[in-house]
């Protein structure tokens, strides 16, 4: 992990999202698909914490050499600030952070499933897979056509791409999971990579489990630091042997996880309100399970 003051090279709107290119040669050199950076908000604001952004591109060669690109959706005060950055502004960046996607051995085909701007890190992954001669297929889903992330670029990167929108304004009407099983079969993909809303990741992981296809998901969980010290971004992971579980950090042990090992029900379920300890089979220790019961 490296900390640098990085110059903003450009800021572009792409559909409903903003894409920011930063001059960050050392980070670009180290970055791998699935990793993220933490960007500091300037002092003197009433919100304090850095904002995590996944890396959309890291260019080591060519005209954009030494830059990274991040993509954001304006969802709060931090992203609103970021969307108002200007070229030549300097931002304080720490990265690359987290564990990247693991690439498959051999020239096996992959299926990349992106929801909204979750497709951004998958484009970086697609580049890396193609450079190694591994076939890439893609599903890009979103609520509407404005939120389908860079569809033309997606097409360039994929042997086959299917776009889905919930309102039918681009591609097929529906969700990524409506087309996933058929596409797995048609493309003979041996591994699935997914990034997008957590509920989508859960549905994708469950379909992959049923199809016995390994699935790597890049998750999103609130982070205070992104550096491994605050323990905010907890994701419940079941032990390899299926016995017991532990909360791991999305920022250090993730954000990329084996979808089959996330205890989705506990993580995304409404456990704080309705503790369902019956489903707590993986916890051998009732005292530990009790910790999740609110006072």
């Amino acid at each position, binding site marked *: 992990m490296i900390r640098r*003051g990085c110059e903003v090279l450009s800021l572009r709107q792409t559909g409903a999202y903003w894409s920011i290119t930063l001059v960050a040669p050392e980070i670009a050199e180290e970055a791998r698909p699935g990793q993220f950076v933490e960007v500091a908000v300037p002092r003197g604001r009433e919100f*304090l*914490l850095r904002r995590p952004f996944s890396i959309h591109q890291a260019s080591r060669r060519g005209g954009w050499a030494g830059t990274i690109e991040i993509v954001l959706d304006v969802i709060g005060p931090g992203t609103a600030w970021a969307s108002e950055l200007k070229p030549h502004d300097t931002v304080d960046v720490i990265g690359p952070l987290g564990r990247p996607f693991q690439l498959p051995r051999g020239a096996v085909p992959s299926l990349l499933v992106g929801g909204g701007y979750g497709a951004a890190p998958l484009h970086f992954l697609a580049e890396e897979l193609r450079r190694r001669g591994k076939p890439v297929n893609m599903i890009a889903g979103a609520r509407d056509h404005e939120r389908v992330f860079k569809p033309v670029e997606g097409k360039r990167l994929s042997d086959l791409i299917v776009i889905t929108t919930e309102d039918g304004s681009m591609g097929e009407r529906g969700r990524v999971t409506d087309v996933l099983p058929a596409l797995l079969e048609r493309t003979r993909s041996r591994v699935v990579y997914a990034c997008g809303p957590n509920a989508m990741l859960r549905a994708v992981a469950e379909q992959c489990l049923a199809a016995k296809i390994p699935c790597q998901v890049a998750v999103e969980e609130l982070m*205070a630091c992104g550096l491994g010290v605050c323990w*905010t971004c*907890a994701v419940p992971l079941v032990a390899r042997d299926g016995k017991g579980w532990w909360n791991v950090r999305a920022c250090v042990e993730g954000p990329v996880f084996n979808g089959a090992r996330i205890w989705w029900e506990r993580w995304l379920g409404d456990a704080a309100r309705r503790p369902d300890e019956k489903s707590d089979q993986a916890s051998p220790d009732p005292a530990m399970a009790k910790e*999740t019961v*609110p006072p």
Partner: protein
Amino acid sequence: MSRTAATLPASLAVDLDGLRLPTPVLAASGCFNTGREMSQLVDLKRMGGIVTKSVTLRPRKGLTVPRMAETPSGMLNAIGLQNVGVEEFISREASWIEHAGVPVLVSIAGTSVEEYSRVTVMVRDIPGVVGIEANISCPNVERRGEVFACFPDQAAEVVGAMSRLTRLPVFAKLTADVTNIVEVAEACIRAGAHGLSLINTVLGMAIDTETFRPKLGAVTGGLSGPAIRPIAVRCVYQVSSALPGVPIMGIGGVASADDAIQLMLAGASAVQVGTANFFEPDATVVVAEGIAEYLARKGLSRPADIVGRGGIQHVDA
């Protein structure tokens, strides 16, 4: 981010009644682990010390997400003391602590006097550990608002038991969520605590008005950051006025040298930086350098020269 170390006074060292630290600025518990991750971004040798994330006797998985909510000039957290338990802590961290090149205080949490005592015995001989912080005030436990530090007799019992089991200085970390913090502080010192860490996070809550749901999975949580700094300054001031000479570490929203200096003028011999580490990993170093510049500007030679000089003699506590 370049700094001119050459212009700074010779020493920022402080002595908390026998606990000597290279600077008066430490990393607070729960914000730095043991420094392993942060060592990639911070020169640990330039820090005053590290207070570890709290260790408990048995592993704790912590609370359900969301565990954090940002609030104006602060953040709420409800982690629930997630940690691997003292045995695993020792096997993973003891060697790191020994060679980290920075004084380490182990923070201990628990639910009974026996738990605090057993962990104290297990960590007291780790090389590199210079002190213990008794976290008797974490709000994110089973009985919210009923932590040991809410009751002078219970606080004294825990801290007294720990202090009898080790020669290391034991600092009792207290909460501001009490009617009379001085009473709790006095009880801890009478029971044998070496010093006090003031304050822990303040119990708070935030609600999402769109979903009608609390922003934290655990409903309530601990508020930290600049939002609580005036509360910390007040607590340090009240306690140091009542207990002159007792070493105090001031904690609460320190992000700059000025923040730290306020706590020191109120009576703290050292300060701990918590939330600020998350956006400024170098915060402990930057704050210490700012203190040195301040001392130089004021013509003072050491941090102890400002401790407790914040007008205490003029005001009736």
